[in-house]
């Protein structure tokens, strides 16, 4: 069939399965996708520009709005870059708390992703179950930071506030029940024959492409690329914690989704260990000026977010505001794979592939 006979379908920018505001221009041959071009930028809010006119502390709320499914990550990555730039040593307790909240955040974020795999394939109930788990994490975060979504919790030099009373017990309760709940979702979703049929062999990403295209996180690990910054470029207190990095073999949507699922189980293990090792102490570096003015220079630091390696590149000119902030967004790199992965599959698969890349457009478009 020649290109002229193809149907061009515009999926988005407001479409139930674009997970935000992505527009995918799809050229269809019947139902087969011949070309899918993601058009992004519908949520380009200019955060990088805004950061140039805000003090280092005032940027933290902005980073919340980057990856709004997992605000803690952007907080942390940004704070790490600031700390590197300003030479701040973070107290150990703060590091543990950061690890705990970020692993909980991973669960919350993956719940969204796994749930939307269900929603994309039409199993809405699984989404609800996953979201129930997410709500519990959100509750924990609310007790911690006072907000359900934009936490503004991890700050340069530590964290915003110490754990409230009874929080550790609540957290333990959550991680104790979470793996079993995950297994239920696994049975309901990834064990289901229809879901398998919908996700297996769809959107296969080869390890070579994954590396070349800069894919990271569960997307890369689903393809068997054994790369996890928590283990391979260890930061914070991760070297003291024991965890497995689940890997996929085929690089299809199923593997990506299931890597996320098992990562949640591993996160529970990490949280348990971190809670065990948590010791009292300060949660903010001492003697931190209200207005940070790091010496001129640039620094980059990255963490393993739910979507992959999330890096923040900061340039300082010695003033109290960053001269330039750039966010290396994993979702941005992962989304670039969509045309390659979706090609040759049907329109129904397109949404599954898009969902399996788990883009969050706050982060993609920044």
């Amino acid at each position, binding site marked *: 069939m020649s290109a002229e006979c193809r149907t061009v379908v515009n999926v988005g920018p407001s479409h139930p399965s674009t997970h935000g505001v992505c527009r995918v221009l799809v050229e269809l041959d019947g139902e087969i996708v011949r070309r899918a071009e993601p058009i992004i930028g519908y949520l380009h809010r200019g955060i990088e520009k805004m950061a140039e006119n805000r003090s280092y502390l005032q940027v933290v709320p902005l980073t919340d709005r980057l990856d709004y499914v997992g605000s803690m990550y952007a907080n942390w990555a940004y704070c790490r870059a600031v700390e590197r730039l300003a030479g701040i040593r973070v107290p150990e307790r703060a590091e543990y708390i950061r690890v705990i909240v970020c692993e909980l955040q991973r669960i919350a974020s993956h719940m969204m992703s796994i749930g939307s795999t269900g929603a994309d394939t039409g199993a809405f109930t699984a989404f609800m179950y996953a979201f129930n788990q997410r709500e519990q994490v959100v509750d924990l975060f609310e007790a911690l930071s006072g907000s359900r979504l934009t936490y503004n919790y991890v700050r340069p030099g530590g964290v915003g506030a110490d754990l409230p009373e009874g929080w550790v017990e609540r957290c333990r309760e959550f991680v104790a029940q979470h793996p079993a709940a995950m297994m239920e979702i696994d049975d309901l979703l990834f064990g289901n024959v229809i879901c398998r049929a919908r996700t297996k062999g769809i959107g296969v990403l080869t390890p070579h492409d994954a590396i070349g295209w800069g894919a990271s996180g569960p997307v890369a690990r689903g393809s068997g690329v054994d790369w996890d910054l928590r283990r391979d470029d260890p930061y914070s207190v991760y070297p003291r914690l024991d965890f*497995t990095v*689940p890997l996929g*073999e085929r690089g299809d949507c199923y593997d990506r989704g299931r890597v996320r699922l098992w990562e949640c189980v591993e996160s529970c293990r990490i949280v348990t260990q971190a809670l065990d090792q948590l010791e009292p102490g300060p949660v903010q570096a001492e003697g931190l000026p209200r207005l940070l003015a790091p010496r001129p220079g640039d620094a980059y630091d990255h963490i393993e977010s739910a979507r992959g390696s999330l890096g923040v590149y900061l340039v300082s000119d010695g003033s109290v505001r960053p001269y330039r902030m750039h966010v290396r967004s994993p979702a941005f790199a992962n989304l670039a794979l969509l045309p390659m992965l979706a090609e040759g599959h049907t329109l129904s698969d397109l949404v599954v592939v898009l969902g399996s890349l788990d883009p969050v457009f706050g982060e993609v478009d920044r």
Partner: protein
Amino acid sequence: MAVTRDAIVTPRSVTNDYPGGVAGFVQKARSLLTGAAITARAARRPPVTVRYPAEKLTVSPRWRGALRLRGLLGRDGIELLTAQSPAYNSVIDGLRRSERLPGCVGNCPANVDARGQSFLIADDRVAEAYELVRQRNIMPGVLGRICHHPCETACRRNHYDEPIAIRPLHRFAYEQFQEFRPERLARFENTRGKRVAIIGSGPSGLAAALDLMRLGYGVSVYEKDAAAGGALRTGVPAYRLPRDVLAREVADLVEMGMELHCGVEVGVQIPLAELITRYDAVLLAVGLQTSRILPLPGAEAEGVRGALEFLRAGNGTGEAGVQGKRVLVIGGGNVAVDVARVALRVGASEVRLASLESSEEVPAHPWEIEEALDEGVIMTCSVGPEEVLAEDGRVVGMRVRECLSVFDETGRFAPQFGESLTNIACDVVVFAIGQSAALDALASDSDVKVTEQGRLVVDGSAFTTSAEGVFACGEVVTGPGSAIGSIAAGHEAAISIHRHLESIPVDASDRVRRPVPTYARYAEVDLRLVEDLRRRAVMPLADAEERARDFREVELGLSRDHAMAEAARCLRCESEICVGCTFCARTCPDLALMVERDDTPGARCLTRYELDLTLCSFCGLCAEQCPTGALVHTGQYELAFYSREFMTFDAAEMLRDPGGTRATGADASRHASEGGAAE
């Protein structure tokens, strides 16, 4: 699902396939049944839904809802800490427990209400401010000149620009108070009929005297010198504390009913035992009288002197016998700096300070050192005295050894010396390395025990000595310290004497030393960004060249305007009254807050406090840094409005307690005023 936790082990590879053939088909069919079973089981579980709005989730206490103000400048007054001495401690403790103790008050040994002082001065109630301060800091005029102001170190303002000039404000209050003095001094009568003798008229003795007078005791103070003041008179140089100021403050105390006996040395003219029998209680506040001199080789040579003797001579007569000589001061503390500056004033040709510590670690206050350097004192840091070089029994120099480090890793004093030696030429060596008490004469005829090292045996919390009815306080108990520290000790001793005399039992909590609160260490603030009107008032200083020649006062005092402006800078920490410091607005990333205030003395008020709810990102940074705790988050989250105009909350709106979670915006009040006509 009956899965135990141990059974869940993450596989290395997450890929899994159905087996082929019939087994696979069975598994496929089973997966459908499993799914149906899961949903069926879920349907039997109770729903997790919150029946909003009939029932509501309890939001976390940290929930960052809409903001609210607890109090407002111009509408609400702040709490002045005005309790009488024994009750004052419990006021402070109460505040500390509720975490509402301002840093300045908490860090002051005597817990002087510096916050109240700033409030009153900014309100043009200076005399009241003086009296407020005098409650705890018995001589604001004196301490306003010489205090080492720990309050300013803990000042919250350090976080934003520079601390409030609390000490200069004390002095300003004193100076203004002079106008009102005659009509505002009330005499305290001896209502209880009991009398207390206080030996020593230094800061601690006078503090105890005033407290005891307030409590209704008769107080007699014995001073061995010709005038009262103790170390304030003999030790503190006159360029820092003019003698007439001290004299007037003491005179005020005498006017208030204190009996002062000068030139009476207890132990020599009157035996202590006699005082003990004549008075219901005796307080030893004799301070430290002798300087320590290192037993170095050559230390007995002529020209080696102790700091206290030197200061006494220099301060008293303006002549210390160093005219035209080169003076070397050993020590890095404030006394050493005082010695050096006095030496300059009494005509030394060259004054050099040799401290053990490096220039960063010198214990003397940086501003003192700076002033000394301005005046021409030379500093030699990181050297330890090795030997006094003497020729014909006269000092010609000092050999010093390089000092590598003074403190070990744990912060203990453990100097490490290097190899290199230097000779410093000088004619006079003054040791300012510590002081000790001279109690032999005093205690010789009484039951008061003195240790072999020449120290009093004192209970550190009750200030009682080994003799019944004899108390001790001040530096004789605590060792060398600050004037305000001695005053604090005087207050405590007065409480102890009061207890003793009234037979008030001492409970356990009173015996525990009050914990010293720790305040945030403030990092250096980048003052490049601070506007002038936010800067600390600069204390005018006399010209360095001029002042170094005589004992004229160095600090010239704040002008009225400056003092008012300075007092208005106070953030009134923890008062829960918004003072319009604008730091919330400055911290807000979104410029959602607009704060303006009017600083007219006597009519200070907030002219504008607006929260533009449409811009707020609920990040909580504003409330987090609100120094007063006036700006707080509410649990209120139902913020729905029919119009954007109503989404800007003014001060009145901000002050209303929303009570519950339903948004009470301007709409609600309007709705109420319309009597629900729209229904």
